[in-house]
């Protein structure tokens, strides 16, 4: 347990450095714009929301909006960045999960993510479609999206490493984080199309897959 706590403290430390007031103001405006945009996205949809509507709602000039976000895609990227930061902060605050088995930790991470993005389901679906275009900034091949992805992978890697050190699973290396990332993406795709009440089919799929994966890893073989 001490290992975990120490690690969490170390991870949290870079955030402690305070940015200047100017940067703080800038960040606040960015968040206000995102908030306005998300409200509009969930009301009108991603494609039908215009930059003018966003700037009106955020009470800034349309020109100012472009200083912050060149395109709606930049806005979406910023959204994901915020989501990731929110997710990692939340995970670090969950002391209850410290003693949980890996399968539960990973379950909690994805479930928390799904809970956070639930109000923006339509928006996420739209972003998915957009991300399929090779020139889109949302495509994983874009450097912006790639940076974000690496940040996510490092977060997962840390969670997996804790399980490795505790002897819960054998060494999985970076492959483990990559594999989980793909799984995470697959679950979101499934979730987007899940029409069961309360999307409980996603919960069942998530729980079963993670338990199977963990027990396969534990035994180190693929034989059922």
């Amino acid at each position: 347990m001490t290992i975990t706590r120490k690690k969490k403290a170390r991870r949290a430390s870079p955030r402690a450095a305070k940015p200047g007031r100017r940067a703080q103001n800038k960040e606040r405006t960015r968040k206000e714009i995102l908030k306005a945009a998300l409200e509009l996205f969930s009301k009108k949809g991603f494609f039908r929301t215009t930059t003018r509507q966003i700037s009106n709602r955020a009470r800034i000039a349309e020109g100012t909006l472009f200083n912050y976000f060149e395109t709606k895609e930049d806005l979406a990227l910023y959204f994901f960045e915020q989501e990731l930061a929110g997710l990692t902060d939340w995970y670090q605050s969950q002391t209850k999960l410290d003693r949980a088995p890996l399968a539960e930790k990973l379950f909690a991470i994805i479930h928390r993510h799904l809970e956070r993005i639930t109000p923006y389901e339509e928006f996420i679906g739209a972003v998915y479609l957009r991300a399929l275009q090779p020139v889109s900034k949302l495509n994983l091949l874009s450097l912006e999206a790639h940076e974000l992805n690496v940040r996510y992978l490092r977060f997962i890697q840390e969670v997996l490493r804790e399980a490795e050190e505790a002897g819960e699973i054998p060494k999985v290396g970076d492959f483990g984080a990559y594999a989980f990332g793909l799984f995470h993406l697959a679950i979101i795709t499934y979730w987007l199309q899940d029409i069961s009440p309360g999307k409980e089919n996603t919960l069942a799929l998530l729980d079963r897959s993670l338990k199977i994966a963990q027990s396969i890893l534990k035994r180190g073989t693929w034989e059922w």
Partner: protein
Amino acid sequence: MVNKEKPRGRIGRGLRIGKLGLALTGSYLGYQLQNLFLGEQERPERRKSFNRKAARQIRVELESLKGPAMKVGQILSTQFHLMPEETLSELAKLQMRAPGMHPSLARAQFKASFGRFPEQVFRALDAEPFAAASLGQVHRAVTREGQEVAVKIQYPAIRKAIEDDFKLLRSAALPARLAGHATESMIAEIERGMLEETDYVNEGRNIELFRKQLQPLDYVRVPTVHWNLSTDRILTMSFISGEPLPDFLTNREPSQEMRNRIGVQLVELFHLQIHRLHTLHADPHPGNYLIEANGTIGLVDFGCVKKFSAGFIEIMQAFEERVWLRGEQQCQRMARLIWGPGILVKPRLAREHLKHAIAFYEMLFPGLTGSRAVVDFGDTKILKTMFRILNENLRNKTVNPEFAFYARAEMGLYNLLHLLRARIDTSAILAKFESNRGAAVHNGEPA
């Protein structure tokens, strides 16, 4: 345990069930081969060892399947008259050992069904369950108003899994089917019962029915439903205290007098359900009877409740009126009621069956024939006789499904009485129900 993980989805479970069938057929063939080389005397022992091995195999496989398939295992284990004894001891281990939801999943599932997280609804909810229900698990909680409650949370997507599993059970070799025991109508009945059990609104209504109807018995405690904190997959009930009967017996070592008293109460409870409610709390699992130090009985888990038809009630009356004393015609009527019209084609078999059923009935209620009235349930005679009769019925494929259901519950009752080693004047209890048939009030004090 070796194969602990749960195969995912229908195909995974299909593979697993298939494998189970194969494993059994494999060893069954081995057993048949051995038969060729073994003398007559060795055979029964060898067969026992095969049954034990197969039983263990079934348990391990069913356990790894979890969910619905495990429930089938549980049901088969309570239908113990359908199984060789060696199989039973293994399957009994399945009971009370449902697959668990970790705290994060239980919380997520609560939200999925209720729309809000438990911490937004309750003052407190234990992260870990205190009891496993077959299709879910039960957590202790305290409402905003400070009431202690039990919250039953169902596994996600269990209904769909049940439907999928039964499609498979029908196509794959069900182990019980190998033994020629589980008929299609029985499997259909189990499926219907399980799907009904997934609807907690239905269970809530059952609780209310029983709560109202069992009020005359002041020693029975039935929970109240908190409808505002329940959905079809979440059931919030008042907390019922007490220990499961087997724990009560080990922890408290109650006196013979206390054991008799609890036994009398159980018999009364059973007959009140049959005679007045025409409905039976049909899960005879000992864990569903929570006993307090003062001997009162808390009744929980109302997912499986059986309503009996008018025809079935007629059978019970025929037994009580001992109509067989009134000549051949009445005997035939009774046989037809119990085993269906098909039985009359085989008059000798019918007579034989009826003779055994009557003998058993008189063993249970010796006071009716003027013998010593107190029955000692500590004696295994009753369970064994019932086991034998049901086996005979099954061997001759003569069993009315409704009667099979009743028999299962009745056997559950005698099993509880046997655990209690209770000595009871059964006939006196029955007489109370006969003398005021139709009367609404009944005092719970044992005679």
